[in-house]
């Protein structure tokens, strides 16, 4: 079998793609909710980090990975409320506040990690989120090893993508969220509470990004490390843009970027630099923004504070 065949014919590559896409798809989904309501959210990185940290911390303390999951997601959601408050109530510059949230999250998780766990790190007996095997599916050749056996959060992610798509595009709530992100003033004149929906969008964004962090800390591993998100929040931002601010598009982009990551691991074996492959998501995003492959356009009021005149 040729080298190419060895790399691309191996179902492991695709299973790994799905796993690598999960911590990108979840925050990208979160960013989609936030930006669809009109709040630019570059704080996904920070939300992920607190999600990862508190996920481990609560999982270790309660010996329940599920409580860890819940805590991690909530931590992301709560942290994102600071962004929401500054963006909505104080009409602050959303990019700057997002950056502040990222700095704060990087600092506070590292500080707490050092302070609580010291040099030994998180306890080695911290529980994982379980890996699930789907009986019938797993037996199918090639497809089985890809889709039939994954971490439970991978399946949750896929479910959340579908649910998010449904909520955003097939419910009244989703219609209103999109309306607020496109034209807050028009939404206001028909009696929609702009601020409330924006808070909701940013909070959901934080929850989902926190869940992405949880996947890193107690899904793939069972430990926390300083700065362990390693820029995934920013790749997720790229995935959201590349996916044209839609859940399905975000998943598609996350899969593409996840594939690039999985491929870079596989290619390392045959001497191709993983660093070159890692550039791909960013380069693709720039190309998407310049309109070479279907122009990607943000919601019309994305990033613009809404100040109702009284």
């Amino acid at each position: 079998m040729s080298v190419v065949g060895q790399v691309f014919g191996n179902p492991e590559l695709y299973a790994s793609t799905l796993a690598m896409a999960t911590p990108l798809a979840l925050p990208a989904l979160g960013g989609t909710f936030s930006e669809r309501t009109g709040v630019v959210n570059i704080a996904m990185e920070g939300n992920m980090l607190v999600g990862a940290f508190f996920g481990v911390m609560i999982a270790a303390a309660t010996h329940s990975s599920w409580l860890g999951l819940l805590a991690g997601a909530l931590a992301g959601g709560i942290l994102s409320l600071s962004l929401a408050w500054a963006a909505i109530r104080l009409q602050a510059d959303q990019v700057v506040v997002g950056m502040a949230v990222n700095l704060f999250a990087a600092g506070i998780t590292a500080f707490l990690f050092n302070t609580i766990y010291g040099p030994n790190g998180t306890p080695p007996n911290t529980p994982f989120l379980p890996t699930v095997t789907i009986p019938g599916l797993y037996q199918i050749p090639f497809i089985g090893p890809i889709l039939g056996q994954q971490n439970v959060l991978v399946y949750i992610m896929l479910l959340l993508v579908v649910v998010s798509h449904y909520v955003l595009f097939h419910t009244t709530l989703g219609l209103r969220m999109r309306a607020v992100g496109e034209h807050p003033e028009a939404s206001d004149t028909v009696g929609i509470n702009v601020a409330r929906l924006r808070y909701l969008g940013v909070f959901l964004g934080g929850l989902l990004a926190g869940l992405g962090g949880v996947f890193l800390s107690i899904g793939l591993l069972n430990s926390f490390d300083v700065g362990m998100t390693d820029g995934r929040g920013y790749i997720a931002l790229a995935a959201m843009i590349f996916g044209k601010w839609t859940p399905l598009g975000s998943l598609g982009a996350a899969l593409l970027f996840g594939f690039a990551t999985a491929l870079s691991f596989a290619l390392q074996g045959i001497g191709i630099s993983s660093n070159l492959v890692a550039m791909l998501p960013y380069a693709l995003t720039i190309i998407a923004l310049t309109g070479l492959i279907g122009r990607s356009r943000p919601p019309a009021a994305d990033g613009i504070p809404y100040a109702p005149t009284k």
Partner: protein
Amino acid sequence: MTQRLRGVLMPLYAVVTGLILGAVIMAVARYNPWSAYVALFSGAFGNLSAIGTTITYAVPLVLTGLGIALAFRAGLFNIGAEGQYWMGAIVAVWIGYHFAAWPWYIHIPVAALAAMLAGALWGGVIPGLTKAFVGAHEVITTMMLSYIAIFFGHYLLEQGPMMAPGFIPQSPAVTASATIPYAPWLPTLTGGFWITLVVIALTHILLFHTTLGYKLRAVGANAAAARYGGMNVAWFTVLSLGLSGALAGLAGALQMLGVEGQLSDTFSSGYGYTAIVVALLARNNPIGILFSGIFFAALSAGSQSMQIDSGVSPYMTDVITGIIVFFVAADRLYTYVRVRRARPTGAVGEVRA
């Protein structure tokens, strides 16, 4: 006059808020905040050698911060200075070790100028043109390009064409002819500091004493009015992002030629992001940037002795930095508390003005 006072007071409020909230967090974690801050301060400014180190830390922050401020003044957010900094370092170090036969007075300027050009291309030409002609937002493009630059740097060093013989992912060291010496009377103070002072002065003059700087500020303050005034907004977009990238590139060059001497894959941990903070805190004033750059350099320079003396994790300074930036951006809060009524205009321009 009140405007100027506000320009100084608001960042001060944010700093004080950051320090107070940092103290609260430390107190909750059962540390003594007072002794931690004392250790932090003496670590950064306790003796001449420490001051030299702090200023050396500040050099790349100030230079990159100046660049970011130039872009802000033109109404643009260069969030990808980190990558431009990398590009400058890569080019400077390559020229620095490659042309050993050159005399220093050619070697250093050529390396520095080439680094500036690289930073300008990376920060200005690509994002500037895509912004001006297809409307791609510079926050996203500069951020994405920044990652590409960083991965490019890692590629060069990790088994790549710029890796020095051996197993450590680092470049060869620059030759003596390309090395900017430390101050003979203070061996912790990089010679790049003097260049930085000159650049501060030049930036100040450019912004406030030339017609070019005037136009750049006009474009940033009101693009429609600038157009009406006959200015080519697209050109100023490219120009200001280019200058911004050039200064980040220069920062990378000085770090290579004057401090580190070789590029390793642990180079820069977020200087490009801290520099944004530096510019914001100084409200994009070149002279203010010197002080805010030193302030943030002191936070990181002092964090080690804070850990040694009082046991507080050095990451505490990142927490404080995050809080300060948050309150710089949310400066309306302070007005709000006083007047109990929000002003009618958006805050975006204000942070950047």
